């Protein structure tokens, strides 16, 4: 029972990160109208930048966090014109071509990470970020500071993000474009500018996720982005593409499921089991459990 509770706490930390990732992914889908498949790869790139800055500055945490967030915002803003150009060429929104473009960007990021950082080997974050010392230990349950921080910051970030979406003017503009782009344009919402805001906002979110993932996992490797990207797209599809509330439920569920499986199944099988469950749900309900918002 103690082990189960420990895994559920671990799963909530992981799940809150999935929720943030899926929310960022869905925001880009709904407002910028792109499937940014490589968004998690951007996040992993930010993790590497954070690691690099920490190393160069002798583990200066604020600088590392700022660098991680800035790099994520920068990549998102730099890629925005590419996506806009592809959509303009097609003279209409074409989600599939933006997905292929995003995969191309992901290929570049993953390969750059595997050549340019730490000789392609996995990177480990310092203890002042990852915090691998147990601060609560009850029987088998051992909770490290990284888990608590990532869970707390994850929950606060999700709450703030949903508050922004549902209780502020920019949030209403985002949702208006998501519901009806033409209607939003008619009532004076600047579509292009709001779209760019969504790139910047998801960039900030990506940076925060990068720091949280660094705290939770304590390490990263070039292929991490691909693996997370598949999970994020799978969670989005299972929840229903663009369904923010659905993403919240399924993201948390996946995190808990994965943590529980990891607790009871050894080695690489744990990830595969999560993937099999996701695959079965997608095969049976390819349009999602909660309905798509597209």
């Amino acid at each position, binding site marked *: 029972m103690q082990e189960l509770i420990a895994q559920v706490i671990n799963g909530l930390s992981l799940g809150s990160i999935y929720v943030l990732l899926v929310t960022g992914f869905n925001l880009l889908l709904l407002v910028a109208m792109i*499937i940014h*498949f490589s968004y998690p790869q951007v996040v992993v790139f930010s993790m590497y930048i954070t690691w690099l800055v920490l190393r160069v500055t002798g583990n200066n945490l604020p600088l590392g966090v700022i660098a991680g967030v800035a790099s994520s915002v920068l990549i998102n803003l730099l890629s925005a014109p*590419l996506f806009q*150009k*592809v959509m303009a*060429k*097609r003279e209409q929104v*074409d*989600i*599939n*071509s933006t*997905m*292929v*473009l995003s*995969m*191309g*960007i*992901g*290929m*570049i990021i*993953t*390969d*750059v990470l595997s*050549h340019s950082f730490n000789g392609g080997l996995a990177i480990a974050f310092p203890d002042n970020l990852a915090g691998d010392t147990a601060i609560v230990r009850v029987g088998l349950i051992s909770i490290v500071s990284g888990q608590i921080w990532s869970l707390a910051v994850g929950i606060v970030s999700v709450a703030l993000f949903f508050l922004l979406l549902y209780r502020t003017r920019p949030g209403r503009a985002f949702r208006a474009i998501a519901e009806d782009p033409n209607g939003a344009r008619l009532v004076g919402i600047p579509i292009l500018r709001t779209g760019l805001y969504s790139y910047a906002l998801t960039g900030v979110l990506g940076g925060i996720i990068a720091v949280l993932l660094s705290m939770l996992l304590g390490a990263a490797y070039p*292929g991490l982005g*691909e*693996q997370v990207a*598949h999970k994020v*797209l*799978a969670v989005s*599809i299972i929840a229903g*593409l663009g369904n923010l509330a659905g993403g919240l439920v399924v993201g948390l569920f996946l995190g808990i499921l994965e943590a529980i499986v990891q607790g009871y199944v050894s*080695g*690489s*099988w744990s*990830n*595969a089991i999560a*993937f*099999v469950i*996701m*695959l079965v749900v*997608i*095969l*049976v309900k*390819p*349009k999602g459990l909660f309905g798509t918002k597209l």
Partner: protein
Amino acid sequence: MPLPLYYFLSITAVNILLSWALYLPYRVAHLHFITVANMAISGYSAAWLVMSLHVPFGWALLAGFALGALVGWIVALFIGDAPTFAVVIVGFTFIFIVRTVIENLPAVGATMGIFGLPNIGGNPETHRWVIMAILAGMLLLTGFFLHRFDHSRLGRAASAVFVDKDLAASLGVNIKGLGMLVQTVSCTIAGGTGVLYGFIYKSFHLDFFTFALVGIAMTIIFVGGYATPWGTVVLAPILYGVPLLFPPAIQEWRIVIYGGVLVIVLVLKPEGFITRRFVATMESFLSGSRKKRNILTKEEL
């Protein structure tokens, strides 16, 4: 046959076949990456049949085709008419699951892979010629099939589905049936290609079936031109061959180069280099007849 030439020709042929296996479902806007997983399933199964049960290579190759078709058909039952992004994620998830299963299966060498596959025909030289002959035969057959498909009612139906699924459905196109057909044929091609891919090197390793392979095939299709099979034929040898001319330090970055080329082409020329209009012009030029009317893609209209 010199070894470098053998590898260049055989791997180019594999790249063309893999890209064609992706091209066919993309005719109905399905990015069917399960083909890479199918290459692994069929390849490893054939290798196991040859090494453990001493099944002759010919039968193992046929089994590879059959297994590819079976897996493709079963999956297509569920996602024959699914949206593109669902098909994409099913493909990626399948690759991940297959890789995990293989790396945990001692019967197929787990993380070490399968080495020392026998020479077909007894000696290395005959082996190379046999592999080249089979690959050439597969290229001709698949190319002929794709040509006939593109010029058939089914091909026109696929073009209609690509442009507007709802319109195609209202015109009476059986979207699920068509999706299942192209997905199953695609997986059949991938199954056979997977077997040959490993037998080229006389070994199978998980590194052969990575997400980078998906990236290579995607670059070939979208840079070459996704609306005709000819783009693949032109681009596959260039994309594989040109980096070989560069120093090893640059060759290491070939995936970054592929990704860069893919992004640039998608932004500047999203229909790719070899378009249907180009092929139609070439056909009319070569036959000396007037230009035929063709169904064009959205970018070409």
